[in-house]
C-alpha cells in the first residue's frame, strides 16, 4: 500500500497531522499528503475548520481575558 501510494493517508492520520501542525512544522511530504487528502475528502475539511476555530478561540481568549474583561 504505502509503496504503491506513498502520499495516501487515512482520515485518522490526517486528523493527527492537522493537530500536529499546531505545534510543529510538518515535513514536506506530509504537507503534500495532507493537501492531496484534503482535496478529495468531505470529512477532513470540517475537522480542519474545528482546529482553526480552536486556534482562533485561544488567540481571542488571550486578548479578551487580558484586556481585563
Amino acid at each position: 500500500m504505502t509503496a504503491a501510494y506513498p502520499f495516501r493517508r487515512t482520515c485518522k492520520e490526517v486528523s493527527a497531522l492537522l493537530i500536529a501542525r499546531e505545534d510543529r512544522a510538518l515535513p514536506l511530504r506530509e504537507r503534500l499528503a495532507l493537501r492531496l487528502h484534503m482535496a478529495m475528502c468531505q470529512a477532513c475539511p470540517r475537522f480542519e475548520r474545528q482546529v482553526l476555530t480552536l486556534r482562533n478561540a485561544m488567540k481571542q481568549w488571550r486578548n479578551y481575558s487580558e484586556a481585563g474583561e
Partner: protein
Amino acid sequence: MPSHPSTDFEQQLVEQRSYLMRFARLQLRNDAWAEDAVSETLLAALAKPQAFEARSQLKTWLVGILKHKIIDAMRQRQREVTFDSGSDDDNADPLEHMAFKTDGHFAEKPADWGNPEQDLKSRQFFAILEACTDKLPAVQGRLFLMREWLEMSSEEICKELALTPTNLYVQLHRARLRLRECLDLNWFSQAPTR
C-alpha cells in the same frame, strides 16, 4: 505600616490579586505555586512602581510580570511540572474516541461548527473554553497553556522543561483533541439558544 505616597498604588495592586490567581492556577495547577508566583509578581510591581507610570493598563502590566514568574517557577520544578501520574484515561489517545471506520476513514463527518465568529464574541463561550482547559489533566494543561497563554514555541518549552520533542508533542496532541471534544460536547452541540 509604613505610610508613603504610593499606598494608593499598593491598594490597586492588591485588588488585582484574585485576577492574577485565576491565571496562575490555570497554568500551574498547584495552589501553593500559584500563590508564590502571584506574591512574587506583586512584590516585583511594588519594587518598581515607576515602571508602571507610563502604562495605561495595570492588568496587562501585571500579567506580563506574572508570566515571567510562572516560567521561572516551572523551570525550577521541571520534574514535577512534567511528571505524568495521570490515569489510563488521561493518557489515552482521544483520537481513539472519534468515530473512525476500521480503514481509518471517518465513520461520520465531524460536526459543522457553524459560524464561529459569532461564538467568539460570546462571554459564555470563553467561560466554557476556560472550563474545558481547566479540565485537562495537569501535565497536558500546563504544556498546552505554555503554548497558548505563555506563547512559547515548542522548542522553548522543551528547553525550559528538559522534555523531548516527542514527549511534548504527544501531550499537546492529547490536550488539543480533548479540548476539541469538550467544546464539541459543551458548546457546539448544544441547542441554539445563543
